[in-house]
């Protein structure tokens, strides 16, 4: 009997992604119970559309967390990228998008230099860069260059909220492609394996002849770029770009990674977990919206459920 329980537990531990998918289905079932008929094709389409920006933001976060770091500037970068893109539209859409993405690359690179070369703790480095980004953005937002109302260009709007065949969100193609790239890349490429190695044991990695600082620099830059992409997609989804666009996505970006089973201490995890984690958090939001309670209560419940999920994950599945 107990041996069987132990075996089941081991299977569950090894296939934690199944537990996550089970949780996702359970939450969807909960919605169906609260409001019968709510779970249909357009609901699924909606969930995917709103999960995409979070999923892309959490992708960058996953890369950084696997190396044992954390990036608390992802939301600031996403906001800045979207706002700068939207305010530069009068000078040409392509130029605007490139500038938006450039924000992510530059901030990510500075984060990377701080963490990899100067050995600054990722938490402090990214927190400080978040301050710099938001401060600069506020100054920029009040300067003459951005006096015009920020406009979300048509192509970004389509990317963020367009659908193919009525139900398939356009952003899912981008998110899906990035997901495949990350899952395969983390598992199968040298760069991916180096990220796990650095997160697991930086000293051993160094002794094995790896130039860790180059890997970290590239990694934080990739995280910045992904954050910028997420910001652009989010601007398309809500069809607006203001100075606080992505602020609320900081906690979910970390929570999706943790719920997805990536250890915050680095060295283990995968993007497939984060992918489902982002979906779970989006469905959770949808459940809370259905509950018809004040926003403050929603906020409390959201935080409490994340604590609960993380706790269950850590204790039951024996992850650290």
């Amino acid at each position, binding site marked *: 009997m107990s041996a069987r329980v132990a075996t089941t537990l081991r299977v569950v531990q090894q296939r934690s992604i199944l537990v996550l998918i089970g949780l996702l289905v359970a939450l969807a079932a909960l919605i169906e119970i609260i409001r019968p008929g709510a779970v249909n094709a357009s609901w699924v389409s909606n969930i995917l559309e709103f999960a995409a920006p979070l999923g892309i933001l959490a992708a960058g976060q996953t890369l950084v967390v696997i190396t044992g770091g954390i990036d608390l500037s992802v939301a600031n970068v996403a906001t800045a990228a979207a706002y700068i893109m939207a305010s530069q539209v009068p000078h040409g859409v392509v130029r605007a998008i490139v500038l938006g993405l450039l924000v992510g690359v530059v901030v990510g690179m500075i984060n990377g230099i701080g963490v990899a070369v100067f*050995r600054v703790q990722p938490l402090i*480095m990214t927190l400080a860069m978040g301050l710099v980004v938001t*401060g600069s953005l506020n*100054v920029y937002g009040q300067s003459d260059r951005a006096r015009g109302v920020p406009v979300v260009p048509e192509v970004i709007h389509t990317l963020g909220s367009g659908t193919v065949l009525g139900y398939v969100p356009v952003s899912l193609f981008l998110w899906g492609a990035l997901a495949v790239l990350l899952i395969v890349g983390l598992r199968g490429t040298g760069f991916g394996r180096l990220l796990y190695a650095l997160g697991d044991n930086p000293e051993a990695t160094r002794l094995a002849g790896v130039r860790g600082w180059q890997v970290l620099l590239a990694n934080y830059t990739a995280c910045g770029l992904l954050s910028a992409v997420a910001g652009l997609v989010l601007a398309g989804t809500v069809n607006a770009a203001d100075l606080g666009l992505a602020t609320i996505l*900081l906690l979910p970006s970390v929570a999706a990674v*943790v719920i997805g089973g990536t250890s915050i201490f680095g060295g283990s995890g995968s993007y497939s977990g984060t992918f489902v984690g982002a979906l779970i958090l989006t469905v959770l939001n949808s459940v809370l919206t259905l509950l018809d309670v004040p926003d*403050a209560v929603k906020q409390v419940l959201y*935080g409490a459920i994340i604590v609960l999920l993380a706790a269950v994950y850590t204790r039951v599945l024996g992850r650290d």
Partner: protein
Amino acid sequence: MATAEATAPAARPAGVNVGRAVRRYGWTAAVYVLFAILMVATVVIKPDYGPFEWNTLTLAALPLAFAAAAQTAIVLSGGIDLSIGPLMALANVLSLHATLGHDLAYSLAAAAVVLLVVTIAGALNGAIIVVTRVPDIVITLATSFIWAGVALLVLARPTPGIPLDFQNLAQGSAISPWVPNALVLLFVIPLLWVPLRRSRAGLSIYAVGSDRNAAFRSGVDLGWTRVLAYAVGGFFAACGGLALSMTTGVGTPLAGTLYTLSAVSAIVLGGVSLAGGRGGMLGPVAAAYILSLIPAVLIYLGIDPNYGQMIQGVLIVLVVMIGGIGAVLRRT
């Protein structure tokens, strides 16, 4: 051989160990020197700098100094609390709710209850971390949502109405124009911290922060010590929230948002190691004054105070990078 070994330790206490003193107090001293330089520069920029401006600075710095003290207590124990700001907001709105339309004696009693409630909220952060074993960053990010939500439930929008007598506890200057009450109130920090640090519990906080395994093997109760550190953090965060009430006279449910980040900035600038176990309260408090002085100086210079946040970020990056260079040089 044996005598040499015997005399060496005896000789040490006689002379002052300069290297160790510099290592231990050098950073704190440098922070105070930086503050002094900034003050001199401020007076040069604004020759009519007087008691009023100094009073304004102490008022602005008071909540941040408490926020920094809160974060320091927690970081010394090897943790971090990203919900300091929301805890301050909670204390702030609770105090408005409790004191609205009452006299000073009642307000003080209400403030004591608020201190207790928010201290418990802080301790709860620590307890959740210890019990669930989920990393502190994740838990306190999530509880930052919870406390901010609770603050919004207590008070939906900014509301004035903190009793004037209660406000005057911080806003006046009872002793001399150059010693405002807001400066005197800072002594709440050493009042709690100095006896604590000399006690077994305080030593345990440092021990757990510097080496958890060694502390465990020396018989320190890890769980209780960490919860204690978070409770002390909660207490100082509550003081910060009450300071907000006294200095602004308003209960603002979103008031704390900026203080979480600024508190981390202050402790980094104040020389507290984020790895835990190293640092004290003196540095972060001075850093809080520096961070509060920057926006004022920008205004005196006629520069958009929006640059303040940017400068704060750049300052932190520079400080930690200089620290990083030190670490790299020592290794090679």
